[in-house]
């Protein structure tokens, strides 16, 4: 699971969960794979993400210190170098083994072989 995907996941579908976002992330194993960087695409992607969840994801792979604590005002004012850091975090890091945890109910959803299993029945077992 790319960290980009984590940015869109939520446990709102669970009973009695009002926001369910961002999901806590535990990373037990991840791999890094170079996906080609494209300035325009990266800006488009950054426009779609929620910064608070990106901070959670960066922390889960011990890379929070590489990105600013506050969301940059305008993505297109960033240099390629700065954008590459975000690109790397969101697209190159692939979580193979880990957990997604609902911030409200603490329900645990496992990530195995790179695929998060968001089935409620499996989580409740």
């Amino acid at each position: 699971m790319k960290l980009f995907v984590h940015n869109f996941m939520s446990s709102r579908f669970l009973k009695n969960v009002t926001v369910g976002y961002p999901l806590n992330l535990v990373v037990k194993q991840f791999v890094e794979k170079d996906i080609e960087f494209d300035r325009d695409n990266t800006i488009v992607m950054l426009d779609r993400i929620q910064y608070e969840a990106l901070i959670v994801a960066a922390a889960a792979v011990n890379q929070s210190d590489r990105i600013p604590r506050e969301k940059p005002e305008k993505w297109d004012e960033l240099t390629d170098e700065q954008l590459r850091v975000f690109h790397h975090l969101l697209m190159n890091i692939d979580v193979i083994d880990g957990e997604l945890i609902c911030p409200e109910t603490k329900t645990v959803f496992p990530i195995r072989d790179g695929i998060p299993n968001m089935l409620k029945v499996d989580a409740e077992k």
Partner: protein
Amino acid sequence: MYFNEEKAKRIGERFEGGKLAKKVHKSIEQLKRHDPDVQISTEPTKYLLVSNSSILCGVSLEELEEIFLPLDELAEFIVYPNKRSYSFVQCSSIEKSIQVRTELHGLIPPSLKNSHQPFAISYVENLPEATKCEDFRPANLKIIEEYVSSDLEKELVDLVTNHPSVQSLKHRAVVHFGHVFDYSTNSASEWKEADPIPPVINSLIDRLISDKYITERPDQVTANVYESGHGIPSHYDTHSAFDDPIVSISLLSDVVMEFKDGANSARIAPVLLKARSLCLIQGESRYRWKHGIVNRKYDVDPRTNRVVPRQTRVSLTLRKIRRKPCECEWKEFCDWDRKGEMSVPSNEDLALKLENSYVSDVYENIASHFDETRHSSWKAVKQFINEIPRGSVMYDVGCGNGKYLIPKDGLLKIGCDMCMGLCDIARKKDCHVARCDALALPFRYESADAAISIAVLHHIATFERRKRLIEELLRVVKPGSKICVTVWSMDQSQSEYAKMRGNKDDVAAAPAVSSEETQTTNRLKVHDGKDFEQQDVLVPWTIDQKGETFLRYYHVFREGEAEKLIESVQGCKLISVEKEQGNYIIIAKKI
């Protein structure tokens, strides 16, 4: 109208010289491919290889007889229902054979109705080896040849044909013993007793028990007299009416009984029942396969493909009336709904159970085969995706093998599927996927610009749940965003699926001998024909290489049903419902 004069029917024309030599060469090439054990002979023999003479070329056995029998009235035929374009003719002598070949070699016989190809005729040393009949048999079917002696055969035939209670049906005469068989319910009526089972049949039953072919004594015996040319339509012996096995004894004439897979009527196993043989239709061959006898005056022996004339045949069917509900493992083919297990679900719990067994579990089993066969995309879906502004986020709910996720089209796409096997396959193709239930999407509220859900909605078993799928799709997209949902339609005319199933039984043309109950209950049915008879069906998925069949649950949509569903969802506006090859492509918008 276009008409090519050169292609006009060349009736009665005869090919000669190089043109004919070419045809001969072609037929020998085909022979080498299909029947390598048959040798071409340079000297005349009794056996003739006749090209362009099979059903495949539009030539019927009747036409062959009409052409060959006047030249040699004792000629015998070996014909093929498929694969081969040639037949073999066995003449009564070499002299006759030479005469037949002289008359017909290179000729387009004037009596041919459909074919305009000339017969190319070669002498062959031998006929093809007989194949093993067992290869074609459905599981658990058992045949014991010469179970009945000629003396007993005569005694049984006399008993049946001279019986005072013999009753004439449309195509056959019938007499019942023990209990009357009721053709309106296809079961035996407990209270309607028939003449008692005669001693000669009773002692046959004793022998069946002592030979351990059966354990329980049959209490209902039906004897049928079939005139040559008559048979019986394909049917199941009603599960709930009789125990296992059904015992069938053939007398006087060999006959080919056709077994058809209840999950795929194109899978036909022709089985030769010889005179005086015992046939035990049991287990899978009884519960899952239909059996019947085609109305015709000859049979083609499945082992040799030799045409055998049919004589008057007497059959005895020995059955034990079932007094407890059927509990066979082929419950999808059973005539009762198994305490609701096989009915169209009426509540959430039953729907979930059905979807688990007949959707989720099935996809886990067929995932890799599914991946091999699913590549082409729906035109309308492609167009929908093309119209989404680049850089948008799109969810693919029920992404399967990822065929809509793979194209690099400038969209940010995330797929999900309930099936782990398919998630794995899509991930290996570098797609972003999560495993989830389409009715509980793990995505952030209003986070996407579009969503698609292809061929998922028809796997959901109640209206309420189908509605919830639409609501879920709307929940995760932003206001103003569009969703695209496709479902199977009940009307499959013009579809690839119908073309693929074109060689199957037409439901209307082959009325199954089914019980009254099946027609009135709200029961799931295994889909077997071209047209859907009802909306809630189990559709077979067959993996040919493995010979495995899985049944997937479908709720196919009627005309107007998609519109109604979308209207019932709050905050949803229908944009369009388009029909493409047996599917409805629904496009709607979140207001």
